[in-house]
Every structure is written in structure tokens, then in C-alpha cells.
């Protein structure tokens, strides 16, 4: 056997591998107007939704060819970082946390004139004075959804307005043999919802700048008011107001448990509105996490569509595509009906989106449209109140730990340490 073919094969294989390695650059963009677009899929925002919305936006932005990249999980930020590390940072990135990337100059801001002209809250998700994601929709995180029939069964005639009324309602439900609150504690983000609600109401309700003060070192998680708020959550656990084994219940199962009437209340972001059963939607209502004095505090987050890479090879085409996608009411229709999103396009009413929504959706939407006290939803805001990168995981972990541990101060001290480390 002559060795030549084998050696040639080795050289060819080596060259192929080297070519593969050297193709990975960190320039982020592709030549011409071929754009890469990072998306994610959920049962509502499925492949068909993305494909259709991309096709429609391409029609509005001629000459743009978009290649869709789908995140393997729901964590868009982590996958975007992986793509960045491997030199494949996409040109367009859907629903990422802009602060994480913008502070390192990786995103291109939108033209403020265009943002002002098209959106109800143009600076709703602005980070350091720039808008990196068109503020197309907003969210209330969490609302307290409740089952009207189970409330009536326990003799409760109206949703609670103050914290003490809320505790009384929980006690009444429990006494009636009804599990007061559903918790999908098996998924960390879902486990954190009661704590998000309480901290937003009690801490940000009193000091809306608390998170920015934390960046400035003026506040800490171990401050007495934060500890008192977190203790409320611990009390709810100890009183047995969540279902048995709540930390073993996955998020998807928690939705089914609540909608099938196994539990009376469910603290979740307004995206739950997309899961309210249409055939008995009127059985469900919603209120906000009650405060001590009964004042209404709306834990609010302005979301949006896609960010544009600062290094895209064709910023004009990327912007044209992003603007077309973001202002297409058809995309908002899917988000409204499927994900309970609250639309923020200027000069449009719900009727303009041709949507079929439930009464509880309409009631919830009034929290957005009414004049009231809106604060950033703790841990969910993407503006200057966004937590440092990595802190959300620590926050979720603390929420789970407080389910089994009485050491409220210790868990909050851990959060302070994690914050200090993340911002070092």
C-alpha cells in the first residue's frame, strides 16, 4: 500500500479543520445584506410565527435576506454569549437583555426620532439614555391571578387590597381545604415570582430608585425593609399557603394545576393570560401583590423586539428589517393572544390588532393604560433598573432556598455578595 493517499487525506483533514477554525471571527456581521437573526421558540411563538413574521418584514425591507437562528433553550442571553464567544454574534437578537451587551458596546441604538414616533413609552426600556430594543410591548410581573369560583367557595367576596387582607384570604382558603397559592417552584424563574411581587410592591413601591441606589452602593439587600419584605414570603411558606412539594412542580405543570382548579391563586407574569382557558375565562380574575397600606403598585417592565448588533455588516438593512418587524401589528396580535403581551404601539387600540382577548386580559391591560404607580418589576426590567448580569440566577436560587430555610438574612447577604462580585 502506498502511503501517499493516506498522507494526502491527513493533510486534507488538517486543512479542513484549520479552515473551520479560522472561519470563526468575532466581527459579528456577514457580508452584504445577509443577516442572522437570533430567535427563540415557545408553544405560542412557534417556528411558523417566526417564519411568517420574517417573511413579512423582508417584504417591508427589500434586499434583506434573513437567516433564523433558534436558541436551544429559553435563555437568549446565554446563547448570544456563546455565539459571541465563537465569533458568530448575530446581526439581530430578539428579546435579549440589552444592558448586558450594550455596556460593552455590542449593540447599536435605535434612532430616537423613530422610537418617539412609533411607541407609547419611547424610553420605557432605555439603557443609559439609549434605546436598544424597540419598546413594542409591556408586561406586569407578577399579577396575582385568582379563581373566582374557589374564592366564592371559601366565602371570599372580593380580592384583597392590603397585605393583611391577603393573608386573611390565604388563611380562609386553607381553612376551606383549598390550597391558596400555586407555585411552579421546579423552574427557578417561576419559583421567584412571589418574591418578585413582594419586593416590587414593598421595596420599589417605597423607593422606585432602589435598584439604581444598589448600583451606587446606597442600598443593600440586607437592609431592614428588604429583609422585612422577604420575611413576608417566608411567612407564606411557613403558613402552608403554597401547595405541598411546590419546589418539585415544573412551571408548565403549575399552569395546568391552577387552570384546572387545584389551587386558588397564582402569582405569575401577565404572559399567563395567554393560558387562561377560553371556555371558562370568566372564572379568573387578577389583582396586584397587595401592599401594607393598600396602595396600588404596578410591577412593570417594557419589553420589546430585537436588538441590532453594533458590528453588523449592513446596519441600514438590519435597522430597516428590525423597524419593519417591530411595527407590524400582526406580530403583536400573536404576542397579545398567545403571550398576554400589552401592546405599546402609538395611535392604536386593542381593536386595531383584531385580537380576541378575555375579560381578565382587558382588566389587566388597564394597569398599563391607567395613571398609577408603576415601578420596575424586580429582576425583570431591561432598562437602567436591570440587575447585573448573572444576578437573576442568584435571585432565583435565593427564592428557592427561602422555601426551605429560615435564614432570610443569610440568603439576602448572599445576594449582596453576588451583586458586589458581578459589578466588581
Amino acid at each position, binding site marked *: *500500500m502506498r*502511503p501517499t493517499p*493516506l*498522507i494526502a*487525506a*491527513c493533510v486534507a*483533514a*488538517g486543512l479542513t*479543520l484549520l479552515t473551520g477554525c479560522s472561519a470563526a471571527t468575532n466581527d459579528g456581521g456577514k457580508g452584504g445584506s445577509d443577516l442572522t437573526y437570533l430567535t427563540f421558540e415557545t408553544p405560542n411563538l412557534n417556528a411558523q410565527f417566526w417564519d411568517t413574521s420574517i417573511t413579512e418584514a423582508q417584504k417591508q425591507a427589500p434586499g434583506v435576506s434573513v437567516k433564523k437562528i433558534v436558541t436551544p433553550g429559553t435563555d437568549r442571553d*446565554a446563547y448570544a*454569549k*456563546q455565539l*459571541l*464567544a465563537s465569533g458568530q454574534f448575530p446581526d439581530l437578537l430578539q428579546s435579549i437583555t440589552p444592558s*448586558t*451587551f450594550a*455596556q*460593552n458596546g*455590542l449593540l447599536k441604538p435605535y434612532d430616537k426620532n423613530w422610537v418617539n414616533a412609533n411607541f407609547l413609552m419611547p424610553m420605557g426600556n432605555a439603557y443609559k439614555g439609549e434605546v436598544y430594543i424597540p419598546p413594542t410591548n409591556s408586561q406586569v410581573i407578577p399579577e396575582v391571578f385568582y379563581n373566582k369560583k374557589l374564592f366564592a367557595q371559601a366565602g371570599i367576596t372580593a380580592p384583597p387590597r392590603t397585605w393583611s387582607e391577603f393573608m386573611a384570604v390565604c388563611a380562609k382558603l386553607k381553612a376551606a381545604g383549598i390550597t391558596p397559592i400555586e407555585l411552579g*417552584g*421546579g*423552574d*427557578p424563574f417561576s*419559583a421567584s415570582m412571589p418574591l418578585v411581587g413582594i419586593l416590587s410592591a414593598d421595596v420599589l413601591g417605597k423607593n422606585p430608585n432602589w435598584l439604581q441606589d444598589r448600583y451606587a452602593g446606597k442600598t443593600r439587600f440586607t437592609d431592614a425593609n428588604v429583609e422585612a419584605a422577604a420575611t413576608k414570603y417566608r411567612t407564606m411558606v411557613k403558613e402552608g399557603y403554597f401547595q*405541598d*412539594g*411546590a*419546589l*418539585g*412542580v*415544573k412551571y408548565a*405543570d403549575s399552569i395546568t394545576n391552577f387552570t384546572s382548579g387545584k389551587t386558588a391563586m397564582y402569582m405569575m407574569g401577565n404572559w399567563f393570560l395567554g393560558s387562561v382557558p377560553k371556555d371558562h375565562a370568566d372564572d379568573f380574575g387578577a389583582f396586584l401583590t397587595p401592599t401594607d397600606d393598600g396602595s396600588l403598585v404596578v410591577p412593570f417592565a417594557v419589553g420589546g423586539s430585537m436588538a441590532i448588533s453594533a458590528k453588523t455588516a449592513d446596519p441600514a438593512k438590519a435597522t430597516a428589517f428590525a423597524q419593519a418587524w417591530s411595527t407590524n401589528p400582526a406580530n403583536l396580535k400573536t404576542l397579545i393572544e398567545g403571550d398576554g403581551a400589552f401592546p405599546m404601539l402609538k395611535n392604536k387600540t386593542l381593536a386595531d390588532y383584531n385580537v380576541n382577548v378575555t375579560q381578565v386580559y382587558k382588566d389587566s391591560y388597564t394597569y398599563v393604560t391607567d395613571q398609577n404607580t408603576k415601578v420596575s418589576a424586580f429582576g425583570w426590567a431591561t432598562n437602567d433598573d436591570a440587575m447585573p*448580569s*448573572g444576578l437573576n*440566577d442568584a435571585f432565583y*436560587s*435565593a427564592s*428557592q*432556598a427561602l*422555601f*426551605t*430555610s429560615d435564614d432570610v438574612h443569610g440568603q439576602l447577604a448572599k445576594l449582596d455578595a453576588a451583586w458586589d462580585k*458581578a459589578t466588581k
Partner: protein
Amino acid sequence: MTTRAHPRRGDPALGAIAVLTLGLYALFIVVPVIMSAWKSLTDENPLKPQTHFVGFDNYTEMTHDSALSDSLTFTLLLTAAVTIAANAAGIGFAILLNKTSLSYRMMRTVAFLPQVLSGVIVAFVWRYILAQDGILNDILTTTGITDKPITWLGTPHLAMFSVGLVAAWVLTGFTTVVHLAALQSIPVELYQAAKVDGAGRRQQFRHITFPMVAPGTTISVTISMITMLKLYDIIAVLTSGGPADSTQSTALYIIKCAFTDNRFGYASAVAMLLLAVSAVIALSVTGLLRRREVDL
């Protein structure tokens, strides 16, 4: 009758294959390890353009990182428990399946099945089995063994146990096959001679089976330990490291440091630590078991 051509010493074809193999090994193993070792001495952040050399700062930081020590403790405990359980079960199953009939051969295939399935699929299946309203709780409550469902994945200690259970189930397929192969290499004459000498089943196991499967045990234990030390997929799907980080293995912690906390440099340092720990444990255990093989 066919004749087999044996490669000659100095055969160029053999050399080319060796070069290719070593080249691929260097490219995919040696180079990444060297790169990781270098990154561990930097503050590399995927979001930042500049990377600085920080010397041994990352390694110093590890000494007072409580999350790392928690994850390492969990990983080592899990490794020890699962390796012992999976190998003990593997020897037992191998003895039971060491027959030549068709049904036993079919059962061997079934025993190996967990090993050929993807860890992600296995974890998804077990997540349904161990769920609050899963099959296991159904069985336990309907048979009256427990009054109410057990929170297998929702309490820290039970979640740790559940991860160990699933990992042991997967590994048992592998340990069974290794021990079965070892058992089948034992000459039947040894058992026949022992029977003639009046040895009972227990004595046959103690004096023939156990010593003769020692080389298989060495391989099985070492590979089981290495598999467990780098366990990621099963935990990621089953518990995501929760609740409250109680099942966060060191491999999971590395991913978190790199892609959640944006600390490639520190994550690389932890990866180097895990590599060192794995190497020390694997070499020590292999050395001990090899010595046992000689003693036996």
C-alpha cells in the same frame, strides 16, 4: 483459509494513521486543555474586547468561593455513591445474566439500554417518573406505602438522592456489560475444579469470580468515576442544579460561571481544577485497584 497481513514495523501507512490520530488528539484534546490553562490565568469576559493577564488570581479566588466548594462537595459525594452503587449492581446483574440462552442474551441488551440512551432523554423520562404527580408517587400512594406524594425533585436532599438514583441507573447498564465480559472470560474449568474440591457457590464467588473480574472492575470503576465527575446533562434536565443550587455539579457551575456570569477566565480555572481532581482520583483509584488485581 485466508492469511492476515500484519503491519510491519516502520510501515508508512501505520505511521500516517498514527500521525492522523495524534494530530486529532492534539487538536481536540491537548490544544483546548492548553488554551483553557492559559485562559485560567486571564480575566477573559466574552462581552469585553480586552483580556488581561491576572496570574493566579482566579485560583486564589477559588479558595474562598463557597459556591464552588458546595458544588465540588456535591460532585465528589455523588461520584462516590453512584460509583459504588452502580458497580455493586453491575456485578450482581452480570452474575444473574451470565447465561447463554436467547432470553438472557435479550435481557443483556435491555440491561445495556440506559447506557446507549442520551442522558438528556433519560433525564426527561425520569423527570416524569419522579414528578409530584408522577408514576412513582402514583405507585407509592395507591399501594398505601406513603400517605401523600414525595417531593423527589423539590427538596434539596431528596433531589440529590434522585440525581444519584438516575445516574446510577444509567451507569449500571455500562457496569453490567463490563462485568459480564469479565465473567465470560473466566475459564469454566476453574468452577468445575472448585466443585470437585467441594466449594459452594459463596466460596466460588469469593475465590474465583471476585478475583477474576478484578480487571473489569478496575475499568468499570475508573470510567464510572470519570463519568460522574463531569456529569452535566442529566442534572441540567432533571433539576437544573436546584433547588437552591443543591444539585449543582462542578460541571454545571463551570457553565454558569462562563455563560451566565461572563467569566471565561474564572470558569477555565475551575475547569482546570476539575481536571486535576479527576486526574488525581482516577490515577489513585486505578493504582489501588491494579494493586488489588496483583494481590488477588
